[in-house]
């Protein structure tokens, strides 16, 4: 027998309402923040996400990793904590030989027709000096095939990957939430049309859609955002639609209609704030998904342009690095991605718990 006695809520409401405190009520968001603060895992996750945000702000403004494309180390420079690579590489012994061969040469300046000009040329050549920077044998977290600093690449890649994920999630949320609100609130033929669109989009395998859009739009960040936004709105749509169907039949919306509130006012002033937590949480899950999708797309060669770096392109490069035993590029990309994605998911989870009015007071 599984009756659902509601005495717990009764006991709670009675104690909540009995002494009616005369202070101003906390808004929904403020009280959600207070509940969020109690969640220790959520707070740690939030701190990590904020740290990433700070890093991204720094790289975005050029304070950090501006010169990620410079070849500052020897190719495949190992991380500093491992020490320089062993000198048994084939290229290491080459520079000694030219001097020896010059000394052994016979003087042929008498018969050389160009001989009188050598001096002049040497003087002119001396006017140019090739600015060759000293090339480091090791880099803080190693270098890639071209000797670029993996750490700077990871920083820059974080900026690109996260901003792609975030922007795409915003696009998908805008599409999904507005279609969902439309379909859920009005229903009828408007709802049917949106539902057909949804069915068409979901009936095509996602990766094929990615390929199709990428083939049309070409490569680049804006393409990625567009592709993922245009294909990823379906989950958001379903959930927002369901929420709107549920809420549009609730008495407070009917009451708003009775006082003469227009359809728009009911949708956006009354219902939207009540489902905003659902949208927000769904959006943060989308961010995580899109970051992973970007990695896959870049790995497949459909992602960011060749002069840009993202976690995905780093993973793609590290495939060939790995054969040579150069693991650091793979490690840098995966660690920075894993930490961010985990922290972001945990944070989204904590927000869901904090914002859901149904869970209030039960924890």
């Amino acid at each position: 027998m599984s009756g659902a006695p509601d005495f717990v809520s009764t006991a709670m409401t009675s104690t909540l309402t009995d002494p009616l405190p005369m202070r101003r009520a906390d808004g929904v968001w403020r009280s959600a923040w207070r509940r969020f603060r109690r969640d220790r895992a959520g707070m740690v996750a939030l701190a990590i996400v904020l740290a990433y945000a700070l890093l991204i702000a720094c790289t975005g403004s050029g304070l950090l990793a501006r010169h990620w494309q410079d070849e500052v180390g020897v190719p495949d420079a190992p991380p500093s904590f491992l020490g320089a690579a062993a000198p048994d590489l084939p290229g290491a012994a080459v520079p000694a030989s030219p001097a020896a061969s010059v000394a052994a040469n016979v003087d042929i300046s008498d018969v050389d027709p160009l001989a009188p000009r050598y001096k002049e040329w040497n003087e002119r050549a001396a006017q140019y000096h090739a600015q060759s920077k000293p090339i480091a044998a090791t880099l803080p977290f190693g270098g890639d095939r071209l000797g670029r600093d993996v750490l700077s690449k990871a920083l820059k890649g974080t900026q690109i990957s996260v901003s792609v994920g975030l922007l795409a999630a915003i696009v998908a949320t805008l599409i999904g939430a507005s279609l969902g609100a439309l379909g859920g609130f009005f229903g009828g033929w408007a709802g049917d049309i949106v539902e057909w669109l949804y069915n068409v989009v979901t009936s095509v395998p996602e990766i094929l859609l990615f390929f199709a859009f990428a083939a049309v739009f070409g490569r680049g960040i804006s393409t990625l955002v567009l592709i993922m936004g245009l294909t990823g709105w379906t989950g958001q749509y379903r959930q927002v639609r369901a929420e709107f169907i549920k809420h549009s039949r609730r008495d407070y919306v009917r009451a708003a209609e009775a006082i003469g509130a227009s359809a728009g006012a009911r949708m956006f002033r009354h219902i939207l704030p009540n489902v905003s937590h659902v949208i927000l949480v769904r959006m943060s899950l989308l961010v995580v998904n899109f970051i992973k999708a970007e990695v896959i797309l870049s790995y497949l060669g459909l992602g960011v342009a060749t002069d840009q770096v993202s976690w995905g392109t780093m993973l793609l490069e590290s495939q060939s690095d790995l054969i040579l035993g150069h693991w650091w590029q793979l490690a840098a990309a995966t660690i920075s991605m894993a930490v961010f994605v985990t922290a972001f998911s945990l944070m989204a989870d904590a927000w869901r718990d904090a914002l859901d009015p149904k869970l209030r007071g039960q924890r």
Partner: protein
Amino acid sequence: MTALLKVENLQVAFRLHDNDGRSRRVEAVGRGEHGISFDVPANTTVALVGESGSGKSVTAMALVQLLPRNAECSGRVLWRGDDLLRASRAHMQRLRGHEIACVFQDPMSSLNPVLTIGEQIAEPLRKHLLVGRAAARTRAEALLAEVGIPEPKRRLDMYPHQLSGGQQQRVMIAMALACEPQLLIADEPTTALDVTIQRQILELLARLQAQRGLSMLFISHDLGVVGEIAQQVVVMRQGTVRERGTVVELFADPKDAYTKALLACRPRLAERPRRLTVIDDVLADEASGMALPLAMRVPEPDSNPRRADDDDPVVLQVDGLSKSFWLRSGLLGRSEFKAVQDVRFTLRRGHTLGVVGESGSGKTTMGLTLLRLHDAASGPLAGRVLFHGHDLLALAPADRLAMRRRIQIVFQNPYEALNPRFTIGQTLVEPMTIHGIGMDAPSRERRARDWLLRVGLDPEAMHKYPHEFSGGQRQRIAIARSLTLSPDVLVLDEAVAALDVSVQAQVLNLLKDLQDELGLAYIFISHDLAVVRFMADDVMVMKDGRVVEHRRTETLLAHPQEEYTRRLIGAVAQGPASPSPSPAKA
């Protein structure tokens, strides 16, 4: 007579976490040092009566140890000598369903929708009595016959959704009785059911109790129901026992002020007081030692100064109102479901029209149709609604907004009707902004404050959110919101059904005062004839979308013409045979 169950100084508290992360204890049963004590003797029905938050359900769940994990119990619960609070989990499992059985409020959610009735009744039999499959089925069939379900053999293979609410509750009772328990705990078993069904279930429980010599612990908020079924009553309030006694004593001569007030504030079929007694007033007077005899406080019936006058101007005239809904059938086809058919009535200024009927009778649809709160695509609408001479159903959408102002609605569930993310101030100011009432925002806010005062709330409430208010307070806010538009007609759709009796009395009084003051016309939709009796001048009885009977309240109650009306009147719980027998008993 020895007590089957003895509750001694029982206390229950819940550990809750508040927003700041501190945990606190909330006392649900018992206050301070004092817990509650009562006995359930063999072959007796004991009722626990109280309003919400009184701790009656928590008490019952504590007896069978079905409380959530954050509950702390102390005291003693002696079941034939064993202390149940200290019993092992295995022992409790053997006891529950076997010796002590429970029936809950909502049969729809208490039955498992994916198992057949037969399987569900057989489960306790096979588990506790170790009966074989075939034998269990035979027993289940006999039980179904005993609780009055026709064609029991066929019903065994049905699923819960194929039965009506009343039949589902009968199945729940059959399940509870399967192992022949000595104690049946019934937690508001009739509250979720229609009035006429309620009556049948009560009669069934009373019959089974007498036939089988059971003890029953009957939990209810309704003193009328309790008066009819119980032999002994325990009145609870805020976790404490206010009074104990036999039903006859308690109803004839209540000792406790709260019990007196609770008895007095119920609207009755037999009389129509000017105002209802309000519990808080009685308790306050009692405390200050100025208690008047209750009889002096409640004016004589029909000393009502405001007589509904037939010369009052007509506000609303409804003629042949019909509303249907399209139901999908097949792939593209649709069939018509007639929810309201050919309703006609005239409503005058300051009058109240009561609309009664069971669920599904179309009374709520009728109310919503008057306000045109149905989607036009949902189904055809016919008839005329003349409001000050304009046909509301023929109005262009642009004119509708102006008319909408004049008819307002208050919904049943005060927990649903207010937007949880709006402050009370926003809720009250919004309608005025939409209709351009008041010059500017500050003047609208001033008006909103005035309305809050008028409905008996502190204007400080402006800055709070709905969750900070109790049910009664929220209903006052909902009423204030409709009144901000100065309507002529207010549709009250079961507006007091979700409220406790004491709060219900306050809200009903408020509605009467507002009607006298503002000359409002009410359409009062309710399933409770006693409340309608208190409020309405005329009553319209609806059944299956049609008006069955429509007459003056007094005439209708005294001489009901239709069988259905008589059934409805007979279903109103009156308490034990009262000193002044009402016409309903006829």
